[in-house]
């Protein structure tokens, strides 16, 4: 959120309407305005609220007499407890089917819930955002993210909803549809399951879903087309597969997250059977797919230590051409113009000088961290964080630190024999 003062018409509307169900909670939050330095401030002039026209009004209902609504600067809201938004008797629903990777809301989920709130509030009749959380849910604050109602299930007729089970999940969506007929069905368009389930659901409903939707209003939707090259402007359909950052996540309000009743569907026969995760050794992941790469160059001497660090950090190994030429690393681990072009989120380059052919290969990396002795080399210029130190010494300390953190639990699942590992790589 930026520091720009943004008007929030809805909050302003609530502030002006003492009879609004949220009025109390919102105003309560304003009681103790805390200044940016942490000092509690009471502004003697702020004893009322400002009308749309700019006229000040006294607030007779104010519980302790100091409540004042400024021009609506949400950035200043510092209350511990956010105001609660209630939808008492919804006449309709906006369903948001969440990914919950690892049982927790992803930022993508939060964006979808934020958009769901936007759509719900754009409806003329009161609509509630219905979050559908299937599987192993560890997230405790769905309300904080914008869920007015929740359908939460971790199994269906003793079939767990963890792992890959789009058919079971679809049956639950079907039951939801029959009972609640949501006005919109929102899914994160993600690789964590949302795109898959959403596509299945759209096909089942016979709806032409909006996919990679990034600008959605009640009436129209803008979707990114193939290769991210076009925008499709279209009427908003019932099923939406939403791009990340499609809407602002909910921040100012809490929502009730009341559980909703659901009559369970009949047992479904499942055709696709999940055999479980294939355990993939991070160091064997293909460079092009890796999220975190630890790469070594001519400035690495202790190769056992290097492999150890990679294992402990859970990083995929990469190398400069010199390290490959010298026979310390296999050829398919070479990063760069004549090796692999990588797009890791974090690239940790140790003892690599940053020749242009190497830098070409890491152009897509989000964060580059360097360990090098030479503060003047090109890798340092490219890096977001550099430590000037001997690689072996820093490695030793990293190992110590990780040891102290007591991480490095071996991944579970099917063991992969070498051929398969290479296949994955």
């Amino acid at each position, binding site marked *: 959120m930026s520091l720009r003062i943004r008007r929030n018409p809805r909050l302003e509307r609530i502030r002006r309407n003492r009879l609004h169900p949220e009025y109390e909670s919102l105003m309560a939050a304003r009681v103790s305005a805390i200044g940016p330095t942490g000092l509690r401030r009471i502004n003697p002039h702020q004893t009322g609220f400002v009308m749309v026209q700019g006229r000040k009004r006294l607030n007779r209902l104010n519980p302790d007499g100091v409540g004042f609504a400024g021009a609506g600067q949400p950035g200043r809201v510092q209350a511990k407890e956010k105001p609660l938004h209630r939808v008492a008797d919804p006449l309709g629903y906006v369903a948001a089917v969440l990914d919950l990777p690892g049982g927790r809301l992803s930022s993508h989920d939060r964006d979808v819930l934020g958009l769901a709130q936007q759509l719900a509030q754009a409806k003329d009749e009161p609509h509630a955002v219905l979050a559908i959380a299937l599987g192993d849910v560890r997230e405790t604050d769905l309300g904080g993210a914008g869920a007015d109602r929740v359908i939460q299930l971790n199994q269906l007729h003793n079939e767990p909803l963890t792992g890959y089970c789009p058919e079971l999940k679809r049956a639950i969506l079907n039951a939801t549809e029959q009972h609640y007929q949501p006005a919109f069905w929102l899914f994160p368009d993600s690789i964590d399951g949302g795109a898959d389930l959403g596509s299945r659901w759209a096909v089942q409903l016979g709806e032409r879903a909006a996919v990679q939707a990034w600008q959605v209003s009640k009436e129209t939707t803008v979707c990114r087309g193939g290769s991210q090259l076009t925008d499709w402007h279209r009427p908003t359909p019932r099923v939406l597969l939403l791009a990340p950052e499609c809407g602002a996540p909910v921040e100012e309000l809490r929502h009730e997250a009341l559980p909703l009743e659901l009559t369970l569907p009949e047992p479904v026969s499942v055709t696709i059977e999940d055999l479980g995760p294939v355990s993939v050794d991070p160091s064997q992941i293909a460079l092009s797919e890796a999220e975190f790469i630890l790469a070594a160059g001519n400035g690495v001497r202790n190769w056992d230590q290097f492999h150890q660090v990679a294992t402990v950090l859970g990083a995929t190994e990469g190398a400069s051409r010199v390290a490959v030429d010298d026979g310390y690393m296999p*050829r398919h681990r070479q990063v760069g113009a*004549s090796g692999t072009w990588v797009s890791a989120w974090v690239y940790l380059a140790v003892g690599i*000088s940053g020749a*242009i052919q190497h830098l070409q290969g890491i152009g897509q990396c989000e964060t580059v961290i360097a360990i090098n002795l030479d503060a003047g080399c090109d890798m340092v210029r490219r890096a977001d964080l550099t430590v000037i130190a001997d690689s072996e010494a820093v490695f030793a300390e990293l190992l110590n630190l990780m040891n102290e953190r007591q991480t490095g639990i071996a991944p579970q699942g099917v063991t992969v024999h070498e051929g398969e590992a290479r296949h994955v790589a």
Partner: protein
Amino acid sequence: MLTDWLLPILLFGALALMLIGATRRVLAWRAGRNEPVAVVAGLMAMPRRYLVDLHHVVQRDRFIANTHVATAGGFVAALALALLVHGFGVDSSILNGLILLSAAGMFVGACCIAWRRRNPPGRLSRGPWMRLPKSLLVFSTSLFLITLMTADWFPAGLVGWVFSGLLLIGLALGLAEMLVGMGWGGPMKHAFAGALHLAFHRRPQRFGGGRSTGLKPLNLTDSTLGVAKPTDFAWNQLLGFDACVQCGRCEAVCPAFAAGQPLNPKKLIQDMVVGLSGGTDAGYHGSAYPGKPVGEAKGNPGQVIVDGLVSAETLWSCTTCRACVEECPMMIEHVDAIVDMRRFLTQERGETPGAGVQVLDNLIATDNPGGLDPARRFDWAADLELPLIADVGKADVLFWISDGAFDQRSQRILRAFVAVMRAANVDFAVLGNDECDSGDVARRLGDDATFQRLARHNIEVLGRYEFNRIVTTDPHAFHVLANEYGDFGGHYRVQHHSMFINELMEQGQLNLQPKALGRVTYHDPCYLGRYNGEYESPRSVLSTLGIEVQEMTRSGYRSRCCGGGGGAPITDIPGEYRIADMRVDDARAVEAETIAVACQQCTAMLEGVVEPRPQIKDLAELVSEALVTEARA
């Protein structure tokens, strides 16, 4: 006497056997693809090509040149005379005397060869080639003595049945090597195939001091693109392979061989011989492809070469530096053969190795090897305000930017050259985004379809404008524009920036204040030197800058490749060393602090060598640094 009737039989018998063998050989060549040649003109030109052009190359090794003159000259003369005297019975003491003289000359030559072969260098093949000097000695001695005998110049008492019998056996052995072997694939085959190869060479322009280095266009509608089987070569290419004398000069200069990559141009040519005649390489007695055993390769005229005869890696190791071609006394065209076979791998099999696939796909989709946005080709010069030829319509110089436009390091060279042109008030313009990759890499990776598309596009674009010459800092683009676009209708006067800057200097257009640079050596780019014969301009530019070039052992036409040509850095076939490292070692050997180069590819390759190493500077950079900049308002 025994000799009277046996000698003609021996001579004519050997001749007949040779002719049968030779006919078979000719048929084997003719199994290749048809390629029209000027038969009569070629045959007429052959002696001159042999005596002048070939000798010019052989002459680089004085000792062997003289030896060859004595041996080959002696043999040809002795055989011709012997046919007259012993075959047709012409009795003349003058002729007899000449035979003695020729045989003696041959004997001396053979002695020298035998001496050379006591402890032959690794590049020479052994096996039958070790036998050859002995055969030569036996033949010349026998012929000498028999001629003495038949001419009755021999002390009569000495002539006995046993003695003349022994001589005849010696002569027979000699004839078997010299004549029968010539037709049936012995070492002497080179004489017969070599002579015809000179007559029917695929690049007659190379004779008489000319040059022909451009690759030949591929007909894209052929039923097989490129060379799959030996018979897919043009017949005169097959003939050329047979001319190889296994001298190993190509092997000695090949950078890929020296770097331990699996390529040896001599073995490659011998494998082609195995392919065209059928069999295995078990009879090969020279150095192997590094890292590959000898004796396992099999081939025949109808078998796909890469399936058992030559591995694809061998073909992809070549940097197309042409050092082998330059050095080959038999004027064999290794690079043509290698690219022909690559064409098959890329265009029929889809097996371009390494990053080659990516590069070709990028060239197809974006007209540049990096797959970058073609609309941003000209971004590098956003601040330079270069005149676009589309705006100005015509200019004296069309500055061909090349793909260096997309590479930061090359951009420094381009900028330096712009500064030089501006300092000399050159009337130049550029194509901007209308320029495409020249097609050099695509062609050398075997994708002639993409090369031809790019060439046609560029020719079409160039055809819209008026200019006197094209100048480029990229020797590869220079070569392609000058020597390969002609086949598609693009004929231009093309100059490399070294030539152009040299001209500007000679005309006094540049105001220079040379700086001290320490010891400087100059690396000849293959595509400027061997491909285009330009060795002088860069050196003259350097000397105008007050630089005394410390020549490396291998410089000029013998310059060692940087490893950057022919798509070799893209296919990146592993070896024991990096070619660029070896080249920088050459520079270190003359204690150079700066290596002056004249090519952005060389710059990239040599700068890819791990520091500390000499700094790498393009000529354009050296010149622009020496420019005296007048304070302009």
